[in-house]
């Protein structure tokens, strides 16, 4: 008897603790339930690295984390998935375009000097580049309200179709069938930038030597520059680099991710010592947003390996609310039906099992908030299924108890034997369930994992509640003689006369 009371006290204490846990920490809802964006980034092997190792994945994650902090999105989480993927969750974010752009680029900044004897070719390329950029800028949607009050834009520059076609041909490009003018200009620009990079010598300085990055608005127009601060070593390298080309007519190239973003001439006056002082700025005619994004990327450092965005999921918050309402309704209505079924079929023990199953649901939710498990739609499905398995444990036990009663055993003995005999089948069933769960958890991806976690928690708790809660509660009730009637368990017609 004392042992029973000990168990009951333990179960009650657990229930109170669970309630307190839930009230304090609440449940973490996944993006499919609350709305937001989720980006999956694949880290790509590059250069000498053919397989992404854990350290490299972590290094990529560090850089991305710094960039995300720079973007200032609240409550974002970045997690590694598998051996070479990262998942970024941005709750509440409806427009992941900007995050995708900032995170997706490597941001490898390189400073190079133009090779001697290439001045003429460079001039031609730069002319083409200016032309193409001007046409593209004119095609862009007109600046929004923040830019009002500025002088009207100059007349739209144009690039005649035949000029464009000639330029493309001169660079050895074939125009894809049916491509639009913007596409062709983008193609031209990409090739021009590629060729400009080809005219530079080796990399003399990289973004690694940066200590700071900032941005400032230009005195004229609505464009921004990105300012750079170097460490001592970087400052010296930069001085040497600028000194080597000062006054020669050759250009200083600033290359981001293999794309030439700025070409600068260095005046005669720096011939003596180069540009010293460890500071520089990139004049790339950036818009305010572009300048800020570049600043965030440069501050975060360049990615050790390139990443590719392989998945973007965005769910509106009202869709999320709809999902949670319908899933909750589904779960509750299903549980209510199960409760009715148990009481009708199993009578008194059925009632006990409903109580035990309610505790089971409470414990489950408490464990979700403790670990914490982020609840997603498949997670809720896993929970509903685990309820089915928990009920199965109770059904197995009560069927056994009924059998014992039918064969003429006394009530208390029937209950004890029922639990003892049902144990091995409950145990085997739960173990095979857990085996599937662990395969799903360790080998599956996102959705599948969420399902496996809730199902596994459910199975473990169901072992506990079926064998402890149901049993202790039933034995507690059996200590009241008024309740100790076999007909509360089995219809009288099925019982042998000796028991009645």
């Amino acid at each position, binding site marked *: 008897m004392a042992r029973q009371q000990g168990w009951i006290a333990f179960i009650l204490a657990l229930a109170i603790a669970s309630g307190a846990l839930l009230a304090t920490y609440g449940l973490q809802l996944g993006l499919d339930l609350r*709305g937001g964006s989720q980006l999956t980034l*694949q880290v790509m092997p590059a250069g000498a690295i053919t397989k992404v190792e854990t350290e490299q994945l972590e290094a990529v994650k560090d850089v991305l984390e710094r960039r995300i902090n720079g973007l200032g999105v609240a409550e974002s989480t970045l997690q590694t998935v598998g051996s070479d993927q990262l998942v970024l969750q941005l709750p509440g974010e409806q427009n992941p*375009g900007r*995050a*995708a*752009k900032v995170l997706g680029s490597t941001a490898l900044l390189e400073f190079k000097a133009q090779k001697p004897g290439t001045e003429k070719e460079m001039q031609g390329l730069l002319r083409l580049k200016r032309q193409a950029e001007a046409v593209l800028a004119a095609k862009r949607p007109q600046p929004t309200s923040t830019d009002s009050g500025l002088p009207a834009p100059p007349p739209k520059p144009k690039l005649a179709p035949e000029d464009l076609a000639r330029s493309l041909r001169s660079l050895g490009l074939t125009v*894809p069938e049916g491509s639009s003018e*913007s*596409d062709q200009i*983008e193609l031209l*620009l*990409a090739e021009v930038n590629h060729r400009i990079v080809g005219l530079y010598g080796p990399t003399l300085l990289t973004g690694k030597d940066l200590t700071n990055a900032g941005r400032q608005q230009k005195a004229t127009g609505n464009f921004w520059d990105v300012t750079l601060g170097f460490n001592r070593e970087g400052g010296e390298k930069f001085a040497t680099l600028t000194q080597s080309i000062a006054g020669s007519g050759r250009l200083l190239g600033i290359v981001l991710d293999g*794309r030439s973003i700025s070409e600068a001439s260095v005046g005669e006056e720096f011939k003596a010592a180069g540009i010293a002082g460890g500071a520089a700025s990139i004049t790339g005619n950036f818009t305010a947003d572009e300048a800020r994004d570049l600043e965030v990327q440069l501050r975060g450092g360049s990615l050790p390996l390139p990443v*590719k*965005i*392989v998945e*973007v*999921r*965005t769910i*509106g*918050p009202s*869709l999320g609310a709809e999902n949670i309402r*319908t*899933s909750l*309704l*589904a*779960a*509750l*209505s*299903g549980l209510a*039906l*199960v409760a009715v*079924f*148990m009481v009708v*079929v199993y009578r008194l023990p059925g009632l006990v099992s409903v109580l035990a199953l309610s505790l089971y649901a409470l414990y489950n939710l408490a464990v979700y908030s403790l670990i914490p498990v982020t609840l997603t*739609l498949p997670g809720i*499905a896993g929970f509903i*299924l685990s309820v*089915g398995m928990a*009920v*199965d444990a109770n*059904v*197995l036990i009560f*069927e056994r108890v009924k*059998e014992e009663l039918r064969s003429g055993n006394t009530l208390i003995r029937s209950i004890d034997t029922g639990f003892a005999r049902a144990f*091995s*089948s409950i145990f*085997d069933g*739960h173990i095979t*369930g857990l085996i*599937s769960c*662990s*395969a*799903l958890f360790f*080998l599956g*991806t996102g*959705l*599948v994992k969420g*399902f496996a976690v809730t*199902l596994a928690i459910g199975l473990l708790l169901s072992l506990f509640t079926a064998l402890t809660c149901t049993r202790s509660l039933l034995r507690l009730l059996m200590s009241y003689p008024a309740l100790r009637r076999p007909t509360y368990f089995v219809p009288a017609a099925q019982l042998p006369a000796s028991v009645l």
Partner: protein
Amino acid sequence: MPDSSAAAIPVRYMRISRHRRLAWIASAIGCGLSVLGLVLCWLNPAIASPLKPGLDFTGGTQIQVERLCQSACGELSVAELQKRLNSLSLPAIPGEITPNLSSTSVQVLDGGRSLLLRLPALSADQSTELIEGLTSVTGPLKSTGTSVNTIGPTLGSRLLRGSIISLLVSFAAIAVYISFMYNGVFAFLALLCLAHDVLITCGVFAWLGLLQGIEVDSLFAVSLITVAGYSVTDTVVIYDRIREQRKLLADLPLIDQVDVAVDATLTRSIYTSLTTLLPLMGLLFFGGSSLFWFAVALIVGIAVGSWSSIGLAPTLLPVLSRR
């Protein structure tokens, strides 16, 4: 029948072995129809795989938007939407060809209230632009009711590979566990039942794909794995009873031991399927569109799983154990 053991055998009970031919034929027909469905799906040039793969496996972008309408939403013409899509020029990504929108599939849902678009993979920027471009045809959209999913083709194949590997590994682990707790024949039959259940569930979806255009997504992979786990759990409970009867009725032939065990667990098997199916029915009727087909897959799989654990594994056990 000797008196000593008669005490443990119920006076009246269902002898599953008497109906075993019927059970085998029913299962064979089910498997045959499923294989036929899978093959027809594969031969269908529009599908060209055993099941119609959804966005999760093919890669691409799926956009769902909800229109903001006062009381009733105006008529929407799919042709007009298609025309609008073709006229859109999306922001280009340097070095990549802008996706062609003419193959977009447009689906109007909820009587014109929401729209579902399936497109080639778009970048986040391009999706935003596209949604803005749509408003000239659809009118204003509810900003909180938009969902955009973009999945790269590599991710789809990775998901598929992950699902298949986890399924196979869990099969192997379960087989090892059962061979260890029972014996090899039990393990083989449990896996046979499991394959039977998974095959028929797939078959139902192959037919649904053929006739209704239903696609399978990653949730379907989850449901298959669940069905596998459930099927084994269900079978193991009956195995447990057979093992017990083999000790209690040691002098009877295996076929009788099995019959007694199946009869004793029959009520439990039916009740358990019912209590598992009840919450799933809730999911089916109230779970909303996102979980509807998931619930269908689970209900089919669990119903078939209960069947095979009663009608297939126990009836084949004496046949295979004789050798």
